[in-house]
């Protein structure tokens, strides 16, 4: 039982347990916190796979951004310590069937498959390469998506403002 293994299992269990909690807990704010834990644990996973940059983004964007947004919205829309009414039986049942069925089906098919690693040498994932590729326009350069994302974010921004702002109808 080496270190990484232990860490991985810790993270994995954390992820599963907390995600279950986050969809199960009847205190909405608590659910949000559970979600936060899941996200953080995932950042840990990324870090273990040498994707420091990604891990960082995960922490900043998700933990720092989305969860906060969610919590704000919670505060805007509902009382924190009021218990949410439990899910309907029908929903619970059908949802469970689907989810479990999905897990089984997916897992079986995935485990049947032997993934074929490529033989080419790995490239380092330090900030330099990441940065260069992120703005590269040639093969495996991600300038175009980067630009498009900007437009998407712009649209999202305008849209959210448009919807959320109160004054004008």
């Amino acid at each position, binding site marked *: 039982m080496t270190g*990484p*293994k232990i860490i*991985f299992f810790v993270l*994995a269990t954390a*992820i*599963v347990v907390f*995600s*279950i909690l*986050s*969809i199960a807990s009847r205190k909405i704010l608590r*659910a*949000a916190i559970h979600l936060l834990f899941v*996200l953080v644990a995932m950042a840990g*996973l990324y870090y*273990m*796979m*040498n*994707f420091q940059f*990604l891990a960082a983004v995960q922490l900043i*964007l*998700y933990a720092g951004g*989305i969860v906060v*947004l*969610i919590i704000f*919205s*919670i505060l*805007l*829309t*509902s009382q924190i310590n009021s218990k*949410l*009414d439990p*899910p*309907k039986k029908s929903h*619970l049942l*059908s*949802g469970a069937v689907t*989810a479990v069925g*999905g*897990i089984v089906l*997916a*897992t079986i098919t*995935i*485990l049947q498959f032997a*993934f074929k690693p*490529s033989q*080419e040498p*790995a*490239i380092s*994932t330090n900030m330099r*390469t990441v940065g260069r*590729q*992120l703005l590269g326009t040639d093969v*495996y350069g*991600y300038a175009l*998506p980067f630009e498009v994302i900007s437009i998407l*974010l712009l649209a*999202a921004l305008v*849209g*959210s403002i448009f*919807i959320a702002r109160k004054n004008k109808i």
Partner: protein
Amino acid sequence: MNLQAEIPLDYLVVLSTIVFFIGLMGVLIRRNLITMLMGIELMLNAVNINFVAFNHYLFPHRLEGHFFALIVMAIAAAEAAIAISLIINIYRQFATVSVDDVDELKH
């Protein structure tokens, strides 16, 4: 630190699968729009695990999965923003965020 030696890929993929469907479960059963949103976030993250894992384990010679994960995060953020604005909009119109009450359009 290198995970390949220690943990087989399947673990990660299965993990992501589980998380994915847990998220789906959340979407399906929770009656609060915001918690549904959380479920969706879970699903997206599960997918991210896949991308990253594949990239790390199988195709380390490029960063496709890595960047895809990055993009997904960005989009998730945008999605969340829009979602929340819409939820607030709903809250204004229906004075609730319970999804069961948002069923005036039907049949």
